[in-house]
């Protein structure tokens, strides 16, 4: 049984009269890798800062181990943070940066030396103790920032877009390393990012946010395969979203044709949003196909081709291994279990 | 820093500034229209006597002093600009390793007492001077000869002002030129402008911020000071500041009026600086 470590109860935070975080409810389990995902300005960083104690919620409660901690300042919380752009202390060297928190907690000198050394090993910078922070590369600063936080053995580690400033290759390596680190240390990670790929790769749980409101909470596969609404479907990966009608159980109609489907939680005749991922569409002969269109563009993407096919004035994006010529007439096919239906949202932003 | 609480630290400063800047300015304005005994208002009445003392055609002595003050300050500022801009440009565009040394060289004179430097300058500009006295030992001589006393006084004052305030022209201009992105110059050349055109169309307009600050930082002290003028003219010349110096104990109303004349200039300059340099980046 997972134990709830932190709970956010009906939290709201206002800036200049607008709600940046709007009545959110969320709990975080012990040992969980949870990611707050959303576009910039969605309130994810503010949420993180409220967990860290840098901001106070205007209403609602932050509960930690059963106690309300709204008024506990950051320096009294068993939480450490890896800040965006690292916030390393420029006047201290690597060792003193990492030892900073331990010294403030009056840890004995010998123990500090040992823990700092271990932390440096953990982030694979064993011989960097005496380096000046200004002379480090972005990736190295990142590692120092992580070491500076984990050396304090926090219960929870907050990470605010920690990889945003790194280049692609390094970012991918670090994703893997962070995940490994979390497993080894057994610390709860609360991770903020706007990069959906990063979220999908690393997280146990993803919280998708928009305009201060939680859109969906779920596992990476759950959120990818069964997005709750258009926003989530668009934000997590590419998708084709179509207007459709739930005809009856296991039957949906869109683009003037009827398709088998597996979703069941709708009323007969209810309008629905239909989501089909680009890799779930297959190209077949035009003859006899339910969806027929003309290839309008084709781009080589390395592993696959990205085709755009115009069907009745609607553009479909398809990922396929075999190329088709622009102008060619093709048919499209989709398996019933790859058609995902969502409730129609009346307010479309 | 994200905590707004720290903003409170600036509040006492606001009060301090209001007391030491706001109240006196108000007093200066009021006192210039009164006849008071010092700062005591007892028995004082409203009058424009102080203003009439300056702006009257019956006795133009004070107006002539104002004119002479303006002329010396103006000429000194123009010369400072003509010398200071190229010097700033040369430092800013010199190879990096020299820059700090050259910059320090520009600042070093400021650590000698500026009045003492002008005493020394007076010495050099005198017909028999210490350099001449030294050089005569090896059979050389050094002496600057002026056509007449008035010319000698005017030129001496201008040289004194220029040499004293030149660093205040060089430093702000240097600061802005140094910050101009080299790639802008390359872009300009790439787009077909030659060196001269690049300077005229890119570097110079971008350095206007520093030029403005420099001109103000030179003109204001040249216009409002009196010590350098007195030292170099051996007390024969009166400038606006001298009028303040002579009257500050006995005629505070006249002094207030003179202050307003200077303040008008200052307010104008502050408006200009506030427009071109919001964060005061060229002032230090």
């Amino acid at each position, binding site marked *: 049984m997972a134990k709830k470590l932190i709970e956010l109860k009906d939290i709201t935070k206002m800036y200049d009269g607008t709600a940046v975080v709007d009545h959110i409810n969320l709990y975080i389990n012990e040992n969980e890798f949870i990611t707050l995902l959303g576009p910039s300005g969605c309130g994810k960083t503010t949420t993180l800062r409220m967990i860290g104690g*840098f901001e106070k919620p205007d209403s609602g409660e932050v509960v930690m181990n059963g106690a309300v901690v709204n008024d506990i300042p*950051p*320096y009294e919380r068993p939480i450490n*943070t890896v*800040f965006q*752009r*690292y*916030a*390393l*202390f420029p006047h201290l060297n690597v060792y003193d940066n990492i030892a*900073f928190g331990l010294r403030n907690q009056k840890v004995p000198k010998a123990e500090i030396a040992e823990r700092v050394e271990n932390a440096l090993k953990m982030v694979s910078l064993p011989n960097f103790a005496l*380096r*000046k922070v200004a002379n*480090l*590369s972005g990736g*190295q600063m990142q590692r120092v920032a992580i070491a*500076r936080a984990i050396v304090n053995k926090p219960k929870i580690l907050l990470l605010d877009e920690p990889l945003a400033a790194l280049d692609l290759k390094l970012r991918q390596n670090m994703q893997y390393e962070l995940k490994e680190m979390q497993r080894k240390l057994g610390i709860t990670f609360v991770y903020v990012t706007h990069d959906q790929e990063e979220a999908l790769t690393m997280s146990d749980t993803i919280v998708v946010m928009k305009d201060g409101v939680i859109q969906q909470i779920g596992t990476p596969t759950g959120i990818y395969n069964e997005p709750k609404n258009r926003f989530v479907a668009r934000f997590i990966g590419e998708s084709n979203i179509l207007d459709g009608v739930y005809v009856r159980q296991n039957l949906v109609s869109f683009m003037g044709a009827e398709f088998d489907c597996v979703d069941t939680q709708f009323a007969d005749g209810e309008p629905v949003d239909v989501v089909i991922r680009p890799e779930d569409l297959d190209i077949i002969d035009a003859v006899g196909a339910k969806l027929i269109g003309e290839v309008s563009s084709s781009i080589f993407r390395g592993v696959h081709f990205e085709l755009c096919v115009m069907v009745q004035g609607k553009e479909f994006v398809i990922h396929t291994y075999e190329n088709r010529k622009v102008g060619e007439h093709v048919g499209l096919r989709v398996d019933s279990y790859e058609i995902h239906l969502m409730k129609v949202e009346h307010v479309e932003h | 820093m*994200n*905590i*707004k609480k*720290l*903003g409170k*630290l*600036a509040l006492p*400063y606001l009060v301090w*500034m209001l007391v*030491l*800047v706001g109240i006196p300015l108000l007093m*200066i304005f009021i006192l210039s229209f009164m006849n008071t005994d010092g*700062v005591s208002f007892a028995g004082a009445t409203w009058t424009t006597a102080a203003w009439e003392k300056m702006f009257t055609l019956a006795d133009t002595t004070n107006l002539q002093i104002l004119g002479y003050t303006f002329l010396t300050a103006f000429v000194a500022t123009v010369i400072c600009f003509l010398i200071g801009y*190229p*010097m700033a440009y*040369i430092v800013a565009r010199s190879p990096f390793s020299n820059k700090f040394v050259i910059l*320090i060289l*520009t600042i070093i*004179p*400021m650590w*000698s*007492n500026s*009045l003492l430097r*002008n*005493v*020394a300058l007076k*010495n050099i500009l005198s017909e028999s001077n*210490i*350099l001449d*006295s030294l050089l005569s030992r090896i059979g050389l001589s050094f002496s600057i000869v002026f056509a007449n006393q008035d010319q000698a006084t005017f030129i001496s004052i201008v040289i004194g002002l220029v*040499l004293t305030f030149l660093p205040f022209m060089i430093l702000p201009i240097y600061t802005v030129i140094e910050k101009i992105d080299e790639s802008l110059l390359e872009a300009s050349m790439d787009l077909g402008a030659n060196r001269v055109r690049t300077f005229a169309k890119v570097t110079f307009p971008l350095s206007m911020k520093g030029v403005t600050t420099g001109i103000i930082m030179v003109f204001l002290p040249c216009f*409002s000071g*009196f*010590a350098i003028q007195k030292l170099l003219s051996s007390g024969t010349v009166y400038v606006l500041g001298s009028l303040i*110096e002579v009257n*500050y104990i006995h005629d505070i109303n006249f002094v207030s009026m003179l*202050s307003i004349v200077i303040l008008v200039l*200052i307010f104008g300059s502050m408006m200009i*600086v506030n427009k071109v340099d*919001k*964060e005061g980046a060229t*002032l*230090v």
Partner: protein
Amino acid sequence: MGVRKKEPGRITRYLRRPEVEKVLQSIANVLKYAFFAFFMFLMYLPIIVIAIQSFNESTGLIYQFTGFTFDHWKNVLTFNLDSSLMKAISTTLLVALLATGISTVLGTIIAIGIHSLPQKKRQGMVFLNQVPILNADIITGISLMFVFKIVAEVIPGVFGIPSLLIAHVFFCIPYVVLSVLPKLAELDDNLYDAALDLYCKPAVGITKVIIPAIMPGILTGMLIAFTMSIDDFLISFFNAGQVNNLSIYIYGGYNRRLAPEVYAYNTILSTVIIVALIAMYVSSSLKKRKNLKREPRHA
């Protein structure tokens, strides 16, 4: 459509030949540095004369060099000065040191406060802060004199060292604020939060993290404040009461012979400052070089 280029004339063509261009370039360089050196020399000429005077044995004639002596230097270094000069120098140094210390501390605190204000208020305070810098010294001097005259009604002893010190603190603070503000702006926004995150209480966070990180700006401000205070004449003139600082002393003696020790004192002081700065520069660049050697930059 092509841009029609004018065919360069013979002279232009000649001037554009690489070997000619090279010569022209070096002539321009020489002229450039000659220009610079000439005016630099002019700025230094009075200082050279001051240095010469500090060794001048002459006691009677002002502008004659009658012989070389170390006496003036010796007198300064053994504090064997006539009492008015001694007082002027000690007043100047006392006020400069106190004013520098006080304005550095206050200016740093004020700068942190201003930096934390919302943008509109911050710009207003930055503008207000510039007032004493842009204001003519004479106006600042008179303004403060008015305030002290009112204060003197209540506290009669205010004119003298107290008024002088307050006046100097007043015009030094803005320089410290202006030097510290840009350093604060360069800081990572999260630096202070990071300190709190790592178990610093708010006040400790400022002294342990913010202050060290903006130290270069504080030192610059301190140096400027000291420079301004030690050289001030106009503001001191109106606010010194019966006390003299060195500038007032020199000004008062414009028509008579100054005690020759003034020249020695001035030369000693500027030499000390210059040597100290050069030492700082050399040690910091040595350190930098050492660091570069030890820690090659990693990509």
